């Protein structure tokens, strides 16, 4: 289906998207002034606005089939009130109006729920669970086979979820959709790395034998750099071609790769990539060093350094590089931790130990990796927080990028679960001329 959902500023339509154009449209949107417009004109604008947001990818006939005038709603009941009264008091009708109950019951916003059937669609649900940056992208994920429903691949974006359905998106796609994009330097860097790898492969066909020889050498004795080079070699051999290596050799290589990784990383299940370890390590020490150096310099002004200041200091690269490595103990501890040995944390302050722990944990799950299609280490994309909400009819587990569609969206007094960008405050009134 052709994508008509452009981010036009002149039309100013609000879409299911996290783009900055959409954000600006959302910011400047006002409920139209309807007093001098005909009823038909009012209906036309209202329909265009609502459709642009809710179901731009849905054909009118599809929507007609889905629409239901019976809108679901619930009323929260208080067991205390139910226990106190069996309903006969209200039906007796005596003394009504005498009780000074100032709280008026809130209106249930049924009109906001008109597009509730569309929230059942798989592509919309993926967008609502924040697994994609727009409903269009969610649709693409489904069509490209990155989405499973109850463990089975589902390729229909218009699949209507049933209560209890569990859908899951490939975490790599989600990280790509929600992460900051690479800038042009990072793109070039990864392109060059890729070309370099390809060139090495063609030049060096005997790498397989080399690895086989070094495999027998004791891993502990060889230096850290050697280990890394070995992993890179093993990886490149494995990724080259399926037919070139016998199965047994492949198994050996994999086992070797695993063993080296175990040495390099603390936990077995980490997804750390070894080629980027050094870079991460140097950055980490930089950060920690500034953290330590900072209170010494500016003790008189700021006795308690706030974390934001640390960031500021760190972000000025020139200053940092001139100084020599201050915290040797910390870097030593980090080295030990990275090589899977016992960490000697006796020389560290409490603050440093905490920073070390946190940095190690994050290094394991958010590594620098130029092969990823998004900027690494992963950061949320810009303007994402302005669109960040998860409706209650979904229960989402972000770690595995899976969500359960619990129930159909419902309205309750004062609240609707379907998020239209605009509310109908009053019914449209026809002008005298029509």
């Amino acid at each position, binding site marked *: 289906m052709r994508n008509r959902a452009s981010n036009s*500023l002149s039309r100013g339509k609000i879409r299911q998207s996290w783009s900055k*154009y959409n954000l*600006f449209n*959302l*910011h400047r949107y*006002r409920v139209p002034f309807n007093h001098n417009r005909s009823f038909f004109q009012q209906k036309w604008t209202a329909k265009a606005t609502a459709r642009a947001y809710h179901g731009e990818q849905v054909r009118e006939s599809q929507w007609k089939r889905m629409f239901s005038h019976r809108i679901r709603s*619930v*009323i929260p*009941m208080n*067991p205390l009130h*139910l*226990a106190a009264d*069996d*309903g*006969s008091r209200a*039906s*007796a009708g005596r003394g009504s109006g005498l009780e000074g109950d100032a709280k008026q019951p809130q209106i249930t916003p049924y009109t906001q729920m008109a597009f509730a059937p569309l929230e059942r669609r798989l592509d919309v649900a993926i967008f609502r669970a924040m697994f994609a940056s727009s409903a269009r992208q969610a649709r693409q994920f489904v069509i490209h086979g990155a989405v499973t429903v*109850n*463990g089975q691949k589902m390729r*229909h974006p218009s699949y209507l979820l*049933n209560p209890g359905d*569990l859908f899951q998106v490939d*975490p790599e796609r*989600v990280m790509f959709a929600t992460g900051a994009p690479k800038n042009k330097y990072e793109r070039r860097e990864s392109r060059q790395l890729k070309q370099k790898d390809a060139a090495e492969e063609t030049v060096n066909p005997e790498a397989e034998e080399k690895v086989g020889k070094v495999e027998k050498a004791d891993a502990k004795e060889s230096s850290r750099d050697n280990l890394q080079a070995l992993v890179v070699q093993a990886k490149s051999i494995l990724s080259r071609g399926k037919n070139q290596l016998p199965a047994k050799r492949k198994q050996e290589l994999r086992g070797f790769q695993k063993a080296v990784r175990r040495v390099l990383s603390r936990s077995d299940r980490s*997804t750390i990539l070894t080629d980027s370890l050094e870079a991460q390590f140097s950055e*980490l020490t930089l950060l920690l060093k500034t953290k330590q150096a900072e209170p010494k310099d500016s003790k008189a002004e700021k006795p308690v350094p706030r974390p*934001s200041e640390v960031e500021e200091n*760190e*972000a*000025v*690269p020139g200053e940092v590089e001139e100084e020599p490595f201050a915290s040797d103990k910390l870097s030593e501890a980090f080295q030990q931790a990275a090589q899977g040995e016992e960490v000697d944390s006796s020389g560290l302050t409490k603050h440093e130990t905490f920073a070390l722990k*946190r940095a190690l944990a994050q290094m394991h*799950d958010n590594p*620098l990796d130029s092969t990823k299609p998004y900027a690494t*280490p*992963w*950061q*949320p994309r810009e303007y994402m*927080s302005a*669109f*960040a909400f*998860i*409706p209650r009819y979904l*229960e*989402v*587990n972000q*770690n*595995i*990028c*899976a969500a*359960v569609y619990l129930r159909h969206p*419902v309205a*309750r007094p004062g*609240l*609707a679960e379907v*998020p*239209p*960008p*605009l*509310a109908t405050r009053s019914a449209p009134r026809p002008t005298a001329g029509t």
Partner: protein
Amino acid sequence: MAPRIQSRRVSSTLLPYLGPSLSTSIPSLPSLPSVFSTFSRSFSATAPSQSKLRREMFEWLDGPGSELKHHKPNRTNYVSQYRKMIGKEYRDLKQYPFPENPTFISQSILSLPLQNEIYKRVVEEKQTVREVSVTFGVDMRRIAAVVRLVELEKRQRSQGKPLALPYARAIHEMVPTTGIARNPDQQKMHESINDLPMHPLTGAQMFYPVPESRSFTRVDAGRVFSGAPAQEHKIAEKWSSPHHVAERVPKRPHLIELVGKGDNARQVLQPADARIPHPQLIALERDLAKYPDEPLLVEQRHQDRLRDQAEAEQKQREAAQARRERKITSVSPQESRFDYRIKEVAFTTQTTGRDGRAPWAPGRRYGVPSDDRKRGMRKVPTRVEA
């Protein structure tokens, strides 16, 4: 002078790797208007063509909109907060993602520790879903979903499949969350757990005259809405209290009276006491009012009731399962990759229609094309078996 950087609160997603690559993306405060910054033809006197709206957009994004560029850890960051509001209907602006829609608020999600606690209580401590639901104020369906998702997460971790951990951390910083309180008495309820679904029958406006002397309860109102005749005096004495109904109906749902005949038979609308997810809380409140000085007795009665309810539910589940299995014979031959489930089908007027060619009739029939051959039939699956 080095460029000055806006100070932000530290986000745990970014902490260790705040390198120069990130600092370039942080907007520097004294920025030129975007017209000049995008000016590429240095020798040309004409400004590049840019629409008024586009210029306004970049001005806004560089000015007030720059607050929205990066998330602010542990608080929401929506457009509504940076827009001047006229009128007082917006109570707490930080909840509203859409400035023009006060009926939609961003509600909290379960924090990761709370999810793990729920999983621990249900799976390891074997507490019932109902109990955990009341303790944390979480819907029972949500509890089931959390258990399912945490189980899946554990499996994926053990298999070494890729996880989106930094993404999860970022989302939990952007969206409001419900956590665990240190003091269990101060635990914040996540959502309302006793939601009564609005029944379509109650949408009709009715005028039903009742004598003043009669006690007209919720049970009677349900009967009126579903068009059931008034109960006989003897039965009414026994069944007119909604509390009695709430105690009996969940255990024996087959006792619910039917109105109408044949295909039009419908169950009589039950009072709210029997239709909410946690009817035992009403009985608990009644006991608390009845025996204000005997908390032990009240607790004992409550526990008994919970146990009875759990047993009854278990019995119903087993009965339903047995009924399902009785209809289907499963055959698993040796040396076969497949299990066969065979369902008995009777060829009668009811099952195949009067001419034997009804669309709902089982099996392939001569002259009746299958659905995927017909025009306008949906081929998108309607359900996926778990």
